[in-house]
């Protein structure tokens, strides 16, 4: 290699070439992930791109190996959580939540019921996101919430929008709530319990901001209703017959898994093992009762997604190591003073909105980590709350969807954006204030 360096005119040129090649590869993979040609998995582009960069020497094999070793447990953790959420859905946990929301509304007027339903949706969506990750809220909970609103004859809009917003802003609490958190968890050097303790108040603050804004923004949808009527009895009875009770076993396993996260981490064991154990218990029970097919478990683990995350990690490392890191370092303020944390969170939110929060967090983590856990958590506030500015999580995806115009009627973009402008800056500022106060009270 040294001989080649001299031939090419030195390290600087070589780094420039490597950076260019890495950047092109990363941008191509990100573009693929946005465009998704023929609906092929994102890994189809990301894996070969990572292999090419390693083969071309843009990232040394050792560096790629180190990144893979670092990402391996994170990806295992992610797979366990995805499977756990899938099994909870199979056991009827989300249907039971829908039934609970519908039943507790009985005897209330439609307008009072709509506001109460919003409060219940906030609680369930925030807890679901925190414990089972944002994927569970978007894919598994949102349809249940819509069905509940329809069953109660209240307008679904505020409740469905609440799910989409909370999938992002309520994903601050635990390392498992969002893949961005899992990636940052290792870099933060915090124990599971310490992470949760520092993020608890910012999490509540972000949810509080959303709740206040939603109550006013959707006042008309929430007020619509005739207080003197009840949903039709025959339908209510048919719906009740379909209701399943709370799957107690599943909830107990989930609670033990949560306790296991904190316990394992405190004992110096990777909390991914607790997630793995929880998933194994629920899967074994489901398989024994023949309610779960092995193939569905493999599908829930989403192997192509895991490969995509691994490859994306290697691609981003190649780009940062070859020069982008040095270029971005001056932009990122050091330390954990309040203005520094605010600036880090704002930069993270902007970067997440340009493309997506996954590459954004991968780029920012190595830059924020030297400033300590506080800076890493500020990055998370930015990349988790920020995507609510656009309803697709990033401008790139939004623009591509506008280009495609999948559907005859385009959604009311103005309404989404206004809602995002009301919740995101306020959520960021209040969340960072809460984080800063927590860092002083609990220590980073």
């Amino acid at each position, binding site marked *: 290699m040294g001989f080649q360096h001299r031939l090419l005119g030195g390290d600087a040129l070589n780094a420039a070439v490597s950076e260019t090649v890495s950047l092109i590869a990363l941008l191509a993979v990100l573009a693929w992930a946005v465009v*998704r040609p023929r609906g092929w998995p994102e890994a189809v582009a990301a894996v070969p791109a990572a292999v090419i960069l390693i083969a071309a020497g843009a990232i040394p094999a050792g560096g790629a190996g180190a990144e893979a070793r670092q990402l391996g447990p994170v990806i295992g953790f992610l797979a366990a959580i995805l499977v756990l959420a899938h099994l909870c859905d199979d056991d009827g946990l989300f249907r039971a939540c829908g039934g609970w929301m519908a039943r507790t509304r009985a005897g209330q007027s439609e307008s009072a019921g709509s506001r109460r339903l919003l409060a219940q949706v906030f609680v369930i969506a925030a807890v679901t996101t925190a414990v089972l990750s944002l994927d569970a809220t*978007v894919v598994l909970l949102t349809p249940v919430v819509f069905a509940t609103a329809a069953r109660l004859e209240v307008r679904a809009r505020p409740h*469905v929008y609440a*799910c*989409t917003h909370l999938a992002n802003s309520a994903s601050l609490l635990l390392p498992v709530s969002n893949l961005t958190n899992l990636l940052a968890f290792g870099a933060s050097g915090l124990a599971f319990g310490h992470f949760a303790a520092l993020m608890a108040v910012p999490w509540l603050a972000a949810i509080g901001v959303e709740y206040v804004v939603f109550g006013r923004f959707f*006042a008309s949808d929430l007020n619509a209703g005739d207080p003197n009527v009840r949903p039709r009895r025959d339908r209510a009875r048919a719906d009740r017959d379909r209701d399943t009770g709370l799957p107690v076993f599943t909830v107990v396993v989930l609670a033990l898994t949560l306790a296991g996260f904190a316990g394992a981490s405190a004992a110096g064991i990777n909390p991914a093992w607790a997630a793995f154990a929880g998933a194994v218990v629920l899967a074994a029970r489901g398989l024994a009762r023949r309610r779960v097919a092995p193939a569905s478990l493999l599908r829930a683990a989403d192997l192509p997604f895991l490969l995509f*995350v691994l490859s994306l990690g290697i691609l981003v490392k190649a780009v940062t190591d070859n020069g982008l890191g040095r270029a971005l370092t001056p932009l990122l303020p050091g330390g954990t003073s309040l203005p520094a944390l605010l600036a880090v969170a704002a930069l993270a939110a902007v970067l997440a909105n340009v493309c997506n929060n996954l590459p954004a967090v991968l780029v920012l983590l190595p830059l924020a980590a030297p400033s300590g856990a506080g800076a890493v958590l500020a990055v998370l506030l930015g990349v988790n709350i920020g995507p609510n500015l656009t309803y697709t999580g990033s401008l790139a*995806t939004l623009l591509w969807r506008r280009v495609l115009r999948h559907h005859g009627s385009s959604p009311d973009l103005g*309404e989404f954006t206004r809602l995002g402008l009301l919740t995101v800056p306020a959520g960021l500022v209040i969340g960072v204030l809460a984080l800063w106060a927590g860092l002083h009270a609990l220590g980073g």
Partner: protein
Amino acid sequence: MTNSDTQHRSVYIWVCEGTWRASVDAALSLAPAGARFTLLHVTSADVPDAARGAYAGLFGRGHRAGDDPGTRLEKMAANSARDLLEAAADRLGRRCERLEIQGRTERAVVAASADADLLVVARDGDQTRLGPKSLGKITRFVVDHAACPVLLVWPESAPDVATIPPPPHHPAPVLPGGST
């Protein structure tokens, strides 16, 4: 009006979640005898699109068609609209047409009712006082733009007239040339 004038009056009832009972009841008590009723419901694409957008925001998940919550919401919305129109037809208890439209709610209602003799609309905003806030944004658009006569009803008994704030105190205008 003679009987033959009123026989073919077409009355559109805008069926909305939460307020449709009041609209149906008002149509029953106030529409001319022999009117032809049309129950109109619009399913907006906004809500399924919000779910679809959130799913698109999940980067790298492969996006298998069966997982897209937007598609599931679309199906559920269609079922819910059908149920709602059926319930409204039951309450009306007369022969009626059911019209289910997909699109931007406010524009679809105005377009569909353009040739109607009457459109029945329920207020859907602040129900506690008389005033402009008693209409939500979408309902406001329909009332402002409707091409046909509109019957605007309160979903419950109307608030008291005293809920209107007192007029601002302006000095009495001086009439031009008036000496009295």
